[in-house]
């Protein structure tokens, strides 16, 4: 039961999703499975959140290191959940003017945006310390990065203004993006597509060991 049921379930659902492309009457079953997918995904999100709260509650209860920040995590969770569930007008909870939107706009958004903005500093520091033209391949990477970074801003064309029009850094950046970069991206894309297709087949046919197959 532990192994067989998941394998059969995967096979039935996966094959239904594929075959419905070719047999449109199966679309009703496909739509149903898609809706169930989102229900299970919702529970999976709740699983993650419950686990997070459990870990932090445990940290606070046992007074482990940095336990006051565990309190902050739990309070932060309650700060947005309670207004969002009970005081923000139900299904129009994210409309302009609701308490949920206010907290989203002035607490969640600044924190989230700034976390990502921090990366700008670390990318600069990492470039300085680690970006070395050690060999031919690294040099190619470096040169391409240089041309793109300068060519995509006005400074690139300013530096190469002495070159005839059509041969400046901006044009070089355009050429790199349109041709060699597109070729590289396409190779990666096709490779991923083949990987996805073969993994999907292995999973649906029960051949994937990680999913309980042989």
């Amino acid at each position, binding site marked *: 039961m532990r192994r067989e049921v998941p394998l059969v379930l995967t096979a039935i659902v996966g094959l239904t999703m594929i075959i419905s492309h070719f047999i449109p009457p199966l679309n009703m079953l496909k*739509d149903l499975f*898609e809706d169930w*997918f*989102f229900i299970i995904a919702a529970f999976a999100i709740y699983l993650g959140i419950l686990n997070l709260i459990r870990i932090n509650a445990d940290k606070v209860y046992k007074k482990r290191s940095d336990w006051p920040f565990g309190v902050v995590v739990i309070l932060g969770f309650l700060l947005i959940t309670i207004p969002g569930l009970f005081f923000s007008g139900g299904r*129009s909870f*994210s409309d*302009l003017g609701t308490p949920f*939107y206010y907290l*989203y*706009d002035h607490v969640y*958004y600044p924190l*989230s*945006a700034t976390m*990502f903005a921090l990366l*700008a*500093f670390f*990318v*600069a*520091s990492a*470039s*300085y*310390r680690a*970006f*070395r*033209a050690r060999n031919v391949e690294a040099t190619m990477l*470096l040169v391409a990065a*240089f041309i793109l*970074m*300068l060519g*995509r*801003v*006005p*400074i690139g*064309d300013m530096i190469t203004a002495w070159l005839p029009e059509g041969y400046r850094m*901006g044009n070089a950046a*355009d050429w790199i*993006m*349109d041709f060699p*970069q*597109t070729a590289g*991206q*396409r190779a990666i*894309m096709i490779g991923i597509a083949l990987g996805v297709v073969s993994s999907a087949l292995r999973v649906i046919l029960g051949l994937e060991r990680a999913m309980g197959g042989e």
Partner: protein
Amino acid sequence: MDQGHQEEEKSFWEKLLSIDRRIIFLFITVAVAVPLFFRLSLHIAVTPVAEGVYQAVQSLPAGSKVLVSFDYDPGSMPELQPMAEAFFRQAFRNDLKVIIMGLWPQGPLQANMALEEVFKDKDIAAKNLKYGVDYVNLGYTAGNEVVIDRMGHSFEESYPKDAYGTPIGEIPLMRGVRNYDNIDLIFNLSAGYPGTQEWVQYGVDVFHVKLAAGNTAVQAPSMYPYVQTGQLSGVLGGMKGGAEYETLLGIPGRAVRYMFSQAVSHAVICLFIIIGNLAYFSLRRRRKSQMEVQG
């Protein structure tokens, strides 16, 4: 060069390589912050892929229906919001009908913010655009690519009501809009998943709609293969893409202004990379010659 001078030069490069990273952070802060105060608008060169987006919208006759999908959150605002505002300006100036939706919860809210900004323009305010007639906001529906797929059969299946609770059958603009067959162009603003790739996979390749996109700079390079095959009419990449779009419209805005900061910060990073490599090669040469001497 004598031994003492060599010792001094060696310690200079080593010091440079082991510089406290907070100095680098300070340089980046200054490089980004100071240009913001100058509010300079630099000349922006337009790329063919950005031109593709502009032409895709410009070629539509008045009255054409454009579906705009806002698939980003405020975290990507600096890159995508200028594109959204520029798109609305182009669409309303050309008397296109705009249907707004979102696959991300915050997307439709970003759309309203962009509309608020654009309606301040005198020429657009003079058009007296009416909600439900000239534009409509269908809001957000959960389901990611499944929504794209279902809209191909029926918009009403995914969006029975608009963002304000009005059944879409009662909205003048939505009468006669059953599915993608009744849409002339889709414009997608995307910061990740679900986004442009899903629109290509489930919208373009299944229902053969025309699609143009604006992406964050991280995503944009991976869209180029779709442009080359024609699955995408064009793509705007990051803040530069927004600046290009504003330039094509002849209305330099926030993105063009931000490009000065962008340019200076890129130059600073390139400088750091050059210095780092000079130090690296200098030290490597020094160690090699020392080994030769010892050998």
